[in-house]
């Protein structure tokens, strides 16, 4: 969505609650606690959500998008079946014996406290270093990518290097973590949006090495 117009003012809510409805909290909890059984990863989850038809993507609220994905994936992975869900919607009970060991409250607290590590050691030398002028490639893959459209083809300066990190483009399809070096690239707003942008303004984007090429015009 970066750079799109037409979405109007940013709606803000005073004293906004963490969850607006109890079901939203349940969805977050379900997501976190079923992750191990669903054998997904964060990139695959993001990729899945982006694959929603655009109309649906825009019409669903945030936790709704999470939920429709959860509901589908739980069925795809055989955790629940459609008949059971329909019975439950109808207020009926279902006979079901435990098929797996659930994540315990203690486990999930530990997982939340520890977080995950996306950093991976790389032996290959860095193609770029801080201060280099680089160009974001004009690539338009059909699959998942974290290279925003608005940065493609644009020239920026590397301002940080973060070592090897799991590469979302392959990780999303379970084709391997394929770690690649991650850089923070600073683009001038005028480079991204044209001469009407404030020349003092910049946008910094975290971009993996395969998204970048040496600038032709530096």
């Amino acid at each position: 969505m970066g750079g799109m117009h037409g979405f109007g003012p940013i709606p803000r809510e005073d004293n906004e609650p963490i969850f607006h409805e109890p079901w939203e909290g349940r969805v977050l909890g379900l997501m976190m606690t079923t992750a191990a059984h669903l054998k997904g990863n964060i990139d695959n989850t993001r990729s899945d959500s982006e694959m929603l038809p655009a109309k649906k993507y825009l019409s669903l609220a945030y936790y709704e998008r999470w939920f429709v994905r959860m509901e589908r994936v739980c069925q795809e992975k055989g955790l629940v079946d459609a008949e059971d869900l329909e019975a439950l919607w109808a207020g009926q009970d279902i006979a079901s014996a435990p098929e797996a060991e659930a994540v315990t409250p203690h486990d999930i607290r530990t997982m939340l406290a520890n977080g995950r590590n996306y950093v991976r050691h790389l032996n290959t030398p860095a193609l770029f270093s801080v201060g280099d002028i680089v160009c974001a490639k004009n690539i338009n893959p059909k699959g998942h990518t974290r290279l925003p459209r608005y940065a493609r083809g644009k020239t920026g300066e590397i301002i940080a290097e973060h070592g090897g990190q799991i590469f979302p483009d392959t990780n999303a399809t379970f084709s391997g973590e394929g770690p690649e070096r991650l850089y923070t690239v600073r683009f001038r707003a005028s480079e991204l949006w044209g001469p009407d942008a404030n020349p003092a303004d910049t946008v910094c984007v975290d971009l993996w090495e395969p998204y970048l090429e040496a600038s032709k015009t530096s």
Partner: protein
Amino acid sequence: MPHDSHDHTDPPSDLALRVKALETALTRKGYVDPEAIDAVVDTFETKVGPRNGAAVVAKAWTDPAFKQRLLDDASAACAELGFSGQQGEQLKAVENTDAVHNMVVCTLCSCYPWPVLGLPPSWYKSHAYRSRAVIEPRAVLQEFGVDIPEDKEVRVWDSTAELRYLVLPARPDGTDDLSEDALAELVSRDSMIGTGVAQA
């Protein structure tokens, strides 16, 4: 997926009511004449459509001088056959050759050469066609059953201005003894948008 409660549009009855209310208001206040509305609708339902374009293409296939006039100034050439008017004031004919296959889209809205093709079909106005035609024209063509060799150019025309494009498809082989009328029968609407080819 259950409960598509957000994937809604208003039921048709609502739309019918809204249209009736607006037409009533505009008519009673003197802005529109209901007969003029009917005349417009009738024009595009019964008079103007892709048969016009097919006649233009068939004539271009059989009359080299006309074909040249069509490629030079399509509006004037189409007017010779009586086809002119709104959304066709500046027609451009683009010719399919052995080297180039042309295809027309309007990524920003639904621009289309009305006097020769009538109103566009729903698929031409669909989000899928508008988004995909410029980035993956070959995949779109394949969906439409058209295979273009890798080494032939697919040239997509995005109608951003008030120029309106008509594809002049290639004349099918083995049609030398067909009359202009018979040839026109071979010219499909899609072949003049470029998502089809004329077939004998």
